[in-house]
Structure formats: structure tokens, C-alpha cells
């Protein structure tokens, strides 16, 4: 009998740690950490002693402070916001302990072996409580069509996610996404050591603003508990969550603050860093699932937008992702088809870029910008280049190539009038788009804080960007519509 309470107590402690997840606001977390430490200390004392703590099933999130004795009484009043935060957790009570080994839970396992109906949809919240190895828990599946940098392999109760190039030059990373409530499979080879992520994840930290519209598309903004930098966020629902203190900022100095992440213990962290650092190891050691986001290494705008499916796989939201992406790809391809037949002679020539410190930076010939220009029925001046990043040239080469271009797009993000162009560098005035007033910036959706939705929604909705560009290059091809991202610089 003395074994049981100890096991329970320690399980309970683990449970508490999980329960702490959705509390980003620092004041709250600090208070709770203090409380929790106290509770853990007391519980540890209780492990060797006699007092058994309450059983885990009976504890929803707000009660984390309950085991603390009366000494802790003043604290709950200071921690008033705490009870409100658990509302963000999607259905915690369903997250009953049900350990995969299922040793202490015979009643559910034994009586109903044949009564496991095949689910008709993926479980988008909580865990399964009557695991059966013969059931396919993921009837809804996604597979990338345009994206080349990730693959998902579906099994009955788990998915194998591979990011082929997690960062520039990085070797493939594999992740085992295991359905909550099902045992974690013992796999061989490169899967043996793959990080395990319990899905559907309840909370997510994201390093790239491009995932925010994806969360919105999946209806999972409420699961967002951390972003790398709050200053880059454009999406209003996310800004609201930030204002409410529900979203932690985990890399304000562009370096992951491991403590902030561990404190919040998100179900998954999508890392969008230039390469691995010690912080990633620290997080992995702390049991945080770090999934590399290789979305920005995709080669096509649609491929990049299709990472919606990868994010969806973490939430079991494949059905929504498939539907949303089908719409995006459908409207993108319909638009591209309209301009596809335009002969080269009727395509306006288009330049991009800016000069800085003696170097003119322009989009590469295989970059997203170049592809969008092509699909919008334009002719990019660097189309013969085969780089996907940016070209570093000088202004005289740019003048030679693009001096008489018809359009200049993606010009200075902070330009608003043509006089800003001349003021920035008078050599810009020798380009034809300056003389004809055809300089377009992508800063129409710039908010007061300086964040540009072009880099957020513009990435996940390439169809909208393409529609903008077609309106600019071939106004006759599109019906009257309001531009979403692009703005023409006006004469002062």
C-alpha cells in the first residue's frame, strides 16, 4: 500500500508540470512557479511520509495551488489572472492520465475489446482513452503536392514527419508525432532517436510569423502561447492575445530564451533559426519538442504556403488544412493561367531591390519574387539568374539591366512618395519607373508597430499577392479589386 501513494504523488507532480503549460504572462508564471516550488517541496516531503495527495483525475488546471497548505494563502489572491488562463487549454479534463502502459487502468481496457469503432475524423483535441492497435486514428491525411521540404508518413496511431532541409545546409530531421493516449511505438533506424511529440498539441510556440495566419486558418490561434518577437506580429487575433498576456516572447533578442520556453512548456516549438544552437539542445533535453521549420527554404510560393499542412499535422487538423490549401492553390493556379498565355513581347519588364553601402540587392532569378512576377505576366530583369536568394550587384549593372524597366516592385519598405525615392539616393531617379511613377512597395499592410502583413499573410496566401501583381501589371485582366499588400508611390 505504501507503493501506491508514492507512485501517485510523483505522477501527480508530472501532471502538474504539464498543467503549467498555458501561462505565458511573466508575472503570473513567476507567482505560480513560486507556489509550485512550494507545493513540490511539500509533496516531496509527502512522498516519504504518509499523506497521499488527491488523485490526478480530480485536478483540473486551476487547482495547481491546492496542495499548498495555508502558508500559501495570500498568493492565490495575487494570482487572480491564473484561473482565466486555463480557458486557453483545449479541454484539459479529457487529458486523463491514461499512461500508455495502462497498468493501473484495467476497467477500460478489458471489458470492451471489440467495441472500438473506427473514427471518422482525426481527434483534434484531447487523447484517445481506449487505444486499439487495429484502429486507424488518422482517417484524414495530408500530403504535400507543391512543398518539397517536408513529408508526412501516416501510421495507425502515429505520424512520421521529416523536414528534409531544416535550415540552410542542414541534414534531414525526423519527428515522431504520436497520438495522445496511444503508446509511443518503438521504432528502428533513424526513427529510434526521433523526438516524440504528443499530438494533438495543445500549445505551440512559433518562431516565424508566417505560422500565425496558418493557425488562424486552422482555427487554432487559441493554442498559440509563444512567439519569437511580438514586434513583428500583424495578425489582429494574435495581437489581442499578446495584449491579454497570453503569449510569451521567447526570442526578443533573436536568441531563444530557453527559460521562457521551458517555463511555458509548449507542446511543440517551431524553430525558424538560421542554424542549431545550444538553446535547441537545452530545450530538447528539457523534453520540449522542437520542430524545425524549413518553410522558408521552399522553392515555390505555393510550396511555402503548403506548410499549412505540416502545422495542421501537429493539431490533427488535416481536414481543414486540405480544404484551405486547395482553395489557395486553386485560386493561385487560376490566376497564373490567365497570364500564362501572354507572349514575352507584351509582358512588362519588372525590377526589384535597393542599393545599400555600394551594393545593389535584387531578388534572385528563382526567388519567390521572380516566380510571382512571372506568374503575374511580368518579365523579371534578372530572370536569367539561377539564385533563389538575393543577387548582390552594383547600381551600374542594375542601371544597365533595369534602367528602362516598366515597373519597380518591392522597393523601399518605408517609402511612401516618389520624393522619398529621390531623397534616399538620387541615382534611383535615373530608373524609368521613377520617371513614370511605377514604383510599388509592398507596405500597404504595414501596421502602426511597423509589422508588415506582407511577410505574414502574404506568405501563406500567395494567391492574394499574385492577384495584386496582376492588377498592377495587367489591370485589364482582373476585375476591380482592392489591393491587399501593394501600394503605388505617389508624386509628393
Amino acid at each position, binding site marked *: 500500500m505504501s507503493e501506491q501513494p508514492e507512485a501517485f504523488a510523483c505522477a501527480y507532480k508530472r501532471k502538474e508540470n504539464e498543467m503549467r503549460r498555458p501561462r505565458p504572462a511573466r508575472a503570473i508564471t513567476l507567482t505560480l512557479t513560486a507556489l509550485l516550488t512550494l507545493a513540490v517541496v511539500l509533496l516531496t516531503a509527502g512522498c516519504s511520509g504518509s499523506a497521499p495527495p488527491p488523485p490526478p483525475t480530480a485536478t483540473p488546471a486551476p487547482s495547481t495551488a491546492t496542495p499548498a497548505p495555508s502558508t500559501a494563502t495570500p498568493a492565490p489572491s495575487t494570482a487572480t489572472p491564473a484561473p482565466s488562463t486555463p480557458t486557453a487549454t483545449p479541454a484539459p479534463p479529457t487529458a486523463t492520465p491514461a499512461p500508455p502502459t495502462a497498468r493501473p487502468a484495467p476497467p477500460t481496457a478489458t471489458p470492451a475489446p471489440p467495441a472500438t469503432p473506427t473514427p471518422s475524423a482525426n481527434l483534434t483535441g484531447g487523447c484517445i482513452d481506449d487505444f486499439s492497435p487495429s484502429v486507424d486514428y488518422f482517417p484524414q491525411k495530408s500530403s504535400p503536392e507543391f512543398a518539397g521540404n517536408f513529408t508526412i508518413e501516416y501510421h495507425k496511431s502515429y505520424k512520421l514527419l521529416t523536414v528534409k532541409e531544416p535550415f540552410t545546409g542542414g541534414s534531414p530531421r525526423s519527428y515522431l508525432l504520436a497520438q495522445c493516449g496511444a503508446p509511443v511505438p518503438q521504432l528502428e533506424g533513424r526513427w529510434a532517436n526521433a523526438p516524440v511529440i504528443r499530438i494533438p498539441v495543445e500549445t505551440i510556440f512559433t518562431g516565424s510569423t508566417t505560422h500565425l495566419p496558418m493557425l488562424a486558418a486552422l482555427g487554432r490561434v487559441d493554442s498559440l502561447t509563444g512567439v519569437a518577437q511580438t514586434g513583428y506580429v500583424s495578425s489582429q487575433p494574435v495581437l489581442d492575445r499578446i495584449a491579454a498576456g497570453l503569449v510569451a516572447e521567447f526570442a526578443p533578442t533573436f536568441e531563444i530564451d530557453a527559460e521562457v520556453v521551458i517555463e511555458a512548456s509548449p507542446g511543440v516549438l517551431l524553430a525558424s533559426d538560421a542554424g542549431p544552437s545550444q538553446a535547441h539542445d537545452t530545450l530538447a533535453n528539457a523534453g520540449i519538442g522542437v520542430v524545425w521549420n524549413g518553410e522558408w527554404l521552399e522553392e515555390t510560393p505555393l510550396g511555402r504556403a503548403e506548410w499549412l499542412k505540416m502545422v495542421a499535422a501537429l493539431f490533427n487538423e488535416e481536414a481543414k488544412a486540405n480544404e484551405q490549401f486547395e482553395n489557395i492553390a486553386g485560386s493561385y493556379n487560376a490566376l497564373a493561367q490567365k497570364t500564362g498565355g501572354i507572349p514575352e513581347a507584351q509582358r512588362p519588364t519588372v525590377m526589384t531591390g535597393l542599393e545599400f553601402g555600394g551594393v545593389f540587392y535584387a531578388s534572385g532569378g528563382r526567388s519567390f519574387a521572380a516566380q510571382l512576377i512571372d506568374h503575374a505576366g511580368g518579365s523579371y530583369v534578372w530572370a536569367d539568374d539561377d539564385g533563389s536568394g538575393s543577387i548582390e550587384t*552594383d547600381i551600374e549593372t542594375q542601371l544597365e539591366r533595369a534602367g528602362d524597366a516598366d515597373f519597380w516592385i518591392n522597393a523601399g519598405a518605408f517609402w511612401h512618395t516618389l520624393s522619398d525615392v529621390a531623397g534616399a539616393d538620387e541615382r534611383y531617379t535615373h530608373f524609368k519607373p521613377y520617371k513614370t511613377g511605377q514604383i510599388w512597395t509592398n507596405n500597404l499592410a504595414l501596421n502602426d508597430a511597423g509589422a508588415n502583413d506582407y511577410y505574414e499573410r502574404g506568405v501563406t496566401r500567395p494567391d492574394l499577392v499574385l492577384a495584386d501583381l496582376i492588377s498592377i501589371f495587367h489591370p485589364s485582366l482582373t476585375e476591380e479589386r482592392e489591393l491587399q499588400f501593394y501600394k503605388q508611390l505617389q508624386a509628393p
Partner: protein
Amino acid sequence: MPLARVRGWQWAVFGGLLAALGVMFFLGIALGSVVIPLDQVFAALTGGQTDKASWEVIIESVRAPRSITAVLAGAALGLAGLQMQTLFRNPLADPFILGITAGAGLGVAVVVLLAGAGGPTFTAGLGNLGNVGIVAAAFAGAAATLALVLLLSARIRNYVTILIIGLMFSYAVGSLVTVMIAAADARQIELFVAWGFGSFRGVTWQEMRIFAPVVGAGIVLGALLAKQLNALLLGEAYARSMGLNVKRMRLLTMLGASALGGVVTAYCGPVAFLGVATPHLARALLGSSDHRLLIPAVILLGGVVALFAELVAQLPGQTAALPLNAVTSLIGAPVVIAVLMRSRRGAFAS
């Protein structure tokens, strides 16, 4: 100001430098990443029509200001370096020894690194800075540092103390920049590093209206102080016995040299090496430490070296240029070592 006695072979050196400057300048106009036939270059220079309209723009608006900038910057750095070396009697002194570059760097860092959210792509952050913002920030930083150092040094007699104060300024200001770098985004840091490479390509005709007069004024001031610098070579006591107001002369020299260094840094970034090397090359070439000879020599030589570096930086057939500072140091260092090894008079004849 009595003219210096110039020997025949020294006239030849001056003639050679002038010719080299002319050739380099022409090459600077004729060569670039875009291949323009020579006859078209002549046509553009003589006001004629070029076959392609863009060539005229390239020569007039890109190459001409670039080459003039190189000449002016080289001259300014050479002269300022010479003045500082003589003033501080230190062969390692350069125009930036009083912390001017560090101050300019701080100004640029504030603009580039604290510019706020520009967006996650590299060029997104460029728009609000432009060259104008960078220049203004560097100017402000350099001027503020200079004012502080001059204010302090007016109360100090000892040269070494002034040098150390300048050094301390560099460290203190540099640490502020380090803090900003630590809190900045990788792309912003890339921009800041790019500024640190130095470049003669950012100056437009518009900016030339400030750049050229400031450099000109600094050169005139330097020429006027040539004789007093000569007196200083013989020691401060001797200079004072000749009726020289050493304190005033010291302040004027520091002001002039720092203004030259500061304006070049503001418009071209921290161009390394030229300020230290050009005076040594000039002394070795002329075999003299008479400033009435050295000052015109460093002005010509500085221009030649700067133009040469700019030409080499532009790799033939490549659209992107090498960082200017890499070229000046990589090519310049062996040349200076070779010259010094052959020179009978050694590094710092005085």
C-alpha cells in the same frame, strides 16, 4: 610660407604621382561591372551621345562620383593620417585615433540596429535607412565624439594622455555598439557589418556638395599648418621657442584631421589602412619628412591608392565588388612592408 627646396628627382616623384592619378581616374571612369566601349566613354565625357542611354547615366551618375569620392577620400585620409602621426609622434597613429570612427559607428549602429522591425527579409530593412540616414547618423556620432575629445584634450598637455583618452572613448563607444549588436536581428547585423566594409560607391552628386567642400577645407587647413608641423618635429620646446602657439596649433590639427577622418567615415564607412599607410609610403618615396613636401605627396598618393583599391575591388566580369577594406589592407600591407624594407631612411624618419 617659404617654399621647400625640391630636388630634381622629387619633382619626378610628383610628376609620376600626378600622372598615376590621371591614369587611375580615367580607368575608374572607364572600367566597371558594365562593359562600355572606350569610344563611348570618350563620347560621354565630351558631352556627346552614347549608343545606349544607360551608359551616359552610368558614367555621369555612378562612375564619376565614385571616382571623385575615392580621390577625395584617399587624399583626406592620407593627410589626416600624416597630421596625426606627426602630432602624436607615433607611426601607428591614424585619422581615427581619437575615437572618431567609433563615434560614427555608434551613430550608424543606432540607425541600423535600432531601426525597429523592418521585416524578415534582408532588403526590407533598407528602405528607411538609405544612404542619407546613415551619413547623417555617422556625422552626428563622429562630431559628438570629436567635440568631447577636443573638450577634454584642451585641458591636457600630455599627448599620450590624449591618445589614451581617445582609445578609451573607442572602447566605451564600441561596447555600446556590442550591446546593440547582441540585441539585433541577423539581417540588421549584416547591414551594419556591410557598412564596416567601407565603400566609395554610396556618394551621389547631391552628397558631394557637402563631402567635397569639407574635404577641401580640411586640406587647406592642413596646408596652412605644414610649417608648424615641421617645427613640431624638432620637439615641442623648440617649436615654442620659435614663437609657435603649440596649444592652438594642436587643437587646430586635431580638429582638421578628425574632420577629414569623420567626413570620410560618414560618407564611405570606416575605410581602413589608407590613413596609416599613405604617410609611410610618401615618406619613403620622397625620402623627406618636410611637411611642405609630404602634404601634397600624401594628397596625390592617397588618391592614387584609393582609386587603385576601388579598381581592384571591382573584380572583372563580376557584378559584386569585394569589400573595400579587404582590398586596401590585403594589397596595401605587402606594398608598405616592401617599401619600408627598401627604404634607407626607415619607417618614421624625423
